[in-house]
């Protein structure tokens, strides 16, 4: 398509966020009036302003030089976000130790130039460091081994 993808994307994103907040205010919050504003007054108008900005940027996208978004490092990004997600899911169930180790490992293999060997080494070192700092030095009250693995 002969259009500026960056403008179109940004325009769409701003418009949808603006509409979400504006419509959320109209349908779910008391608006009130300027002299006694309800909870929805301020977000409604900010939402309207943002929608206008979004539409403006979107339209501009058809009139400016074509430009694409560029590549997204899908493999690395998924591994990296997966690392944080794994920690969030594991810390209360599997325990702090598996959560830390899993998070470190997933993060360590996310760069393109990472190898299994170096990732494993980083995982061991970093997990040990985190356990020493957070659990022993700062004394944070997280069980090392969680209920799913027979801990408390």
């Amino acid at each position, binding site marked *: 398509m002969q259009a500026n993808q*960056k*403008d179109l*994307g*940004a325009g769409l*994103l*701003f418009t949808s*966020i*603006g509409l979400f*907040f504006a419509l*959320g205010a109209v349908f779910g*919050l*008391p608006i009130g009036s*300027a*002299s*006694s*504003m*309800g*909870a*929805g007054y*301020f*977000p409604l108008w*900010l*939402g309207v*302003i*943002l929608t206008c*900005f979004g539409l*403006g*940027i979107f339209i501009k996208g058809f009139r400016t030089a074509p430009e694409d*978004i*560029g*590549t*997204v*490092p899908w493999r*690395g*990004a998924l591994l*990296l*976000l997966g*690392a*944080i*997600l794994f*920690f*969030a*899911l594991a*810390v*209360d169930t599997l325990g702090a130790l598996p959560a*830390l180790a899993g*998070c*470190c490992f997933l*993060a*360590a293999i*996310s*760069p*393109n*130039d990472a190898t299994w060997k*170096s*990732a494993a080494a*980083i995982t061991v070192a*970093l997990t040990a460091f*985190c356990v020493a700092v*957070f659990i022993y030095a700062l004394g944070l009250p997280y069980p090392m081994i969680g209920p799913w693995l027979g801990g408390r």
Partner: protein
Amino acid sequence: MEFVDHLALGLSTALQVENIFYCFIGVLLGTFIGVLPGLGPTATIAMLLPITYYLSPTASLIMLAGIYYGSQYGGSTTAILMNLPGEVSSSVTAIDGYQMARKGQAGKALAIAAIGSFVAGTFATFVIALAALPLSAVALSFGSTEYFALIVLGIVASTALAHGSVVRGMAMIVTGMLFGLVGADTDSGTFRYILGMIQLSDGLDTVAVALGIFGISEILRNLETSGSEGPVTTAKITSLMPSKEDLKESAGPIVRGSLLGAVMGVLPGGGSIISAFSSYALEKKLSKHPERFGHGAIAGVAAPESANNAGAQTSFIPMLTLGIPPNALMALMAGALMIQGITPGPNVVRDQPELFWGVIASMWIGNVMLVILNLPLVGLWVALLKIPYRMLLPAIVIFSTMGVYTVNNSAFDLYVLLLFGVLGYTFRKLGCEVAPFLIGFVLSGLLETHFRRALVFSGGDMMTFLDHPISAGILAVTALIILAVAVPAISRTRKEAFAESED
């Protein structure tokens, strides 16, 4: 003299063992991340926000401030030695600094950069000390109408003067504001946009949002280029001492750079980056040998280095005295204060004098530490560049994750971190700077409160903002700025000024 009393109080606070320790940690960390290209001060400060829960408000602000101006020092070291500006603001230094290094004058360039930064830092400390009281007195006399106008001015100016498209910047600020409104409405207690999630009733966690939108999105961005080797051409460092002529030649640029930097730093959106660019341009114009610039002119190192350091420090003024952060970094500092239950603004000087003057005095002490840390140990910092990013990345990820989790011991905040990480990366991919988002996020509550209050007093009449002379004046300035940006001639020169920084 009142002024001397204040500085004495500040020095005695800053010289407490705890505060000296955290000041040292701050400048050390700042130098470290300043040297490393893939990690900026904003992301680092976002990463360290959770740790500040365990510190006193004074110590945490001292440490965070240290990271900020420390990173300016570190950034210039690599800019001079290997043409690799660790921070955007040092990219100006790289122009002439690297040329000096190639001529075998690396030591001289480093020394001038350090001396310039130190002089500028000292000067900026005094400027803050002098400007703080009058400014906060003015701010305290402001009503909601004036405050609303002032915040609008701050917001508009911060996008107009900052990097990137103005329209996108404004849209990002509004987006940040909207997300800042999530949670209970302070006035009526009504829950807004919590989508049935009770964890959101106190609003989105500042640490998780800031770290996601800055830290995680920056890591994702760095993953795009991971695997490619950076250029490493280390110049030999010979004699550190500049000659008498060098000092004489740099004296003027250092003084002018400090002055210009101190003024530019106060402006919203400014801070160290614009200061560095404009002082370089000024020196080139004033110089008797403008042709030397770009080929190793010592003034081309002295001026921007002084300016960016002065600007870094004076950008604290609007945040500490008015409660309006002029850039994303200061928005994070404001966040750090709010975490501690302190609302940044004119009340800080009045109610927490030790905090206020302590932080200011610590900047001067921090500058002394930086000279000691940077000049003799420069070889060590350069060696740091050999650490590949793939080893740093897991450490950054795990510290961010643990940091966010430990704030409330809640896995929910990690989902917020993920969401805003993805959102931040998407925005960056679409050509939107994420810095204005954070300014909006931090300011929206304050803006809504003052907007509401002003209109309650006026009975809903919007003209109240124009009827009050002070707010009308402030809004007129705001309109002028919008006009100036909209006029093509000015926006063209603005583009040119920033085009240099894109290299």
